[in-house]
């Protein structure tokens, strides 16, 4: 199993939730995972019902069987100062740079520096070892930018290595690329069974493959359970349906009766449902054609809370994702 698991997906598909569940699943039975947030939205803290995460690795959950999930919200500016301090012992010079606006420049304006720092920090966590030479984290899960930007984001170091042809940044960029393009890394895409997210997933996988980045799995999120048999039987008479509803205690079956009035709206809802199921079926087909493992996660209708997160994690383990 790859030690760096990158989770991307179109906006609104729940990639942060899936990344968190994956981190939990991977931590199960005594493992330690680090869940990394790069977009500064504090979605992870909200999911784990914790306070906003500082730029610091912090334990946010205990996994079934004694594992631990740590989380880190990477702040580009602090990561830069961190780097300068770590590699060049530039504590005070770093502060001076900040005063000059160099840090602002580097983290907001300069091409890719921000992304270099974010990917670099994640790769550092992947490679970090303790005094006994063991990896500090068994797995690092990254809640990455959305599908539209993921290839560029992960590939930024290639570009930087090309720009800065020598020097520490060049070396650093190359080291990061070595991790990202190796089997140590797997990029998963989260989608829904809807047209636009599926289209974006298909496009995104093409881009990742073209860039030589290792594509992992397709995770279909918020899959709705089937409620009625599809297709809805068409050989049932409305009068019988009205009678059945009436016999269930929903009012009169005669024309204008309360049960009879339910027939049309209920059948309309069934027709919508059928249309949706057919659409989902088609989208599922498109995903299957990608030749990647596809996993489905059920829709948690009550929204995602901690319990729901653990449920998703269990499901991921059952499906062999973690």
């Amino acid at each position, binding site marked *: 199993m790859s030690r760096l698991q990158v989770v991307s997906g179109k906006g609104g598909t729940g990639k942060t939730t899936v990344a968190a569940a994956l981190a939990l699943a991977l931590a199960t039975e005594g493992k330690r995972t680090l869940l990394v947030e790069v977009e500064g939205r504090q979605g992870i803290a909200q999911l784990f019902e914790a306070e906003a995460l500082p730029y610091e690795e912090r334990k946010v959950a205990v996994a079934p069987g004694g594992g631990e999930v740590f989380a880190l919200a990477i702040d580009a500016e602090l990561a830069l100062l961190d780097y300068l301090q770590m590699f060049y012992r530039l504590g005070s010079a770093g502060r001076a740079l900040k005063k*000059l606006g160099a840090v602002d420049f580097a983290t907001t304006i300069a091409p890719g520096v921000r992304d270099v720092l974010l990917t670099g920090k994640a790769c550092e966590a992947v490679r970090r070892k303790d005094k006994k030479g063991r990896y500090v984290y068994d797995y690092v899960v990254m809640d990455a930018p959305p599908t539209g930007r993921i290839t560029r984001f992960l590939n930024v170091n290639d570009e930087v290595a090309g720009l800065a042809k020598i020097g520490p940044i060049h070396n650093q960029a190359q080291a990061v690329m070595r991790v990202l393009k190796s089997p140590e890394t797997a990029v998963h895409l989260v989608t829904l069974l809807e047209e636009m997210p599926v289209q974006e997933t298909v496009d995104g996988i093409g881009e990742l493959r073209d860039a030589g980045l290792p594509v992992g799995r397709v995770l279909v999120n918020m899959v709705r359970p089937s409620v009625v048999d599809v297709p809805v039987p068409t050989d049932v008479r409305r009068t019988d*349906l009205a009678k059945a509803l009436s016999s269930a205690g929903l009012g009169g*079956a005669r024309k204008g009766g309360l049960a009879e009035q339910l027939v049309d709206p209920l059948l309309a809802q069934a027709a919508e449902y059928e249309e949706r199921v057919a659409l989902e079926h088609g989208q599922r087909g498109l995903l299957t054609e990608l030749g990647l493992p596809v996993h489905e996660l059920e829709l948690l209708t009550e929204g995602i809370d901690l319990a729901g997160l653990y449920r998703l994690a269990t499901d991921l383990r059952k499906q062999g994702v973690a």
Partner: protein
Amino acid sequence: MTLDPVPALNVDPLIDDPTTRIIVCCGAGGVGKTTTAAALGLRAAERGRKVVVLTIDPARRLAQSMGIDSLDNIPRRVKDLDGDGAGELHAMMLDMKRTFDEIVEAHADPERAEAILNNPFYQSLSAGFAGTQEYMAMEKLGQLRARDEWDLIIVDTPPSRSALDFLDAPKNLGSFLDGKFIRVLMAPAKVGGRAGMKFLNVGMSVMTGTLGKLLGGQFLKDVQTFVAAMDTMFGGFRTRADATYQLLQAPGTAFLVVAAPERDALREAAYFVERLAAEEMPLAGLVLNRVHGSGAARLSAERALAAAENLAEPRIVDQDGGKEEREQGQLPDSPDSPDSTADAADTADTASTVSAASSGSTASSGSTASSGSGRPDARVSADSSADTSADTSGAQQLAAGLLRLHAERMQLLAREQRTRDRFTALHPEVPVTEVAALPGDVHDLAGLRDIGDRLASGDRPAGAA
């Protein structure tokens, strides 16, 4: 159902008003922002306005739905509009690199422009790393407005980390340009080598030394020549960015916050509303997409589920079909109530036909042989005398399924209502329009028009609580 004090957002007066010149659609990713922008543009054009829609999202499907193969940096006219022909719709997609190149070409002399365009640092900057998109969106909006060819510009905002990053673009640019850092960068290239360094204090020479060490000498030189070459343009850059920012605050601009009735999307919507207020940007209202309704909203999820269970448990089903006297709201019978008198033989009978019906629709009576439309509602049958137990059990099974489906729908409605209430409690002053959920995506102008109709009617879908 609660009393609804939320003001309605009327889209038509907004898009018809000739003084409305810019509409900005913002919202979290995946809530239908771009589609809303396009639908609004189409509606405005068909109501007689000359509209350009600027999208940031490279959604091919959307381009195709407007009959354009692919959108690019040049506004393309959309054909086959309804209406009296007075209006026009143009659509374009922001091409960051192209927009940036155009600025360079327009504002630098040819020699300098070439130097900039060939600079490796410029090339990767303009191709769109984080941040550039926001500047270029602002730049393009400013350009479109300055051309004055359209009387309404509709933009959707970049899918950024925080979708209001574009508001910060001028400020970021300004603080960068005003900063000392840029002078440090420019000094060596401008004055050249050691002579330049003399003017810098020791701290700064450490800085450039450090940067050189970090970035590699060539990279730093690329950056320096880039900054030097751009120097003459930076002033204009900022002036225009500031002007666009002011344009966004001016009367004639309206912001629409787009959301779906989901927790995260509405939380982000609340954030936008607050941020827009802080920036004194004029908010027109909230577009709530993908709202669900039900034609049978008076039947609660709980009652529907209880009734479905009742049907699934044939022992307690009252087979005579007559419950007219039963009072609405009363719970179904518990198994030990006097009503549950169905006899054991009947139960066995029902059970066998249920399995027959579920193994295909072959168990239906002969009267249903050649079904025309296939839709159940087209098959209203006059002779209820042909009742067989197969019909009854099939109907019961279907009814139970429909009731479960309905229960799910009602639960969804309740959830949407809760998330919505949370937003309304925070921002009761924000006008809202709701757009009913569609089962599929938009594929053509008719689909966009349909969304436009839904946007304008703002009717809550039937039964939305």
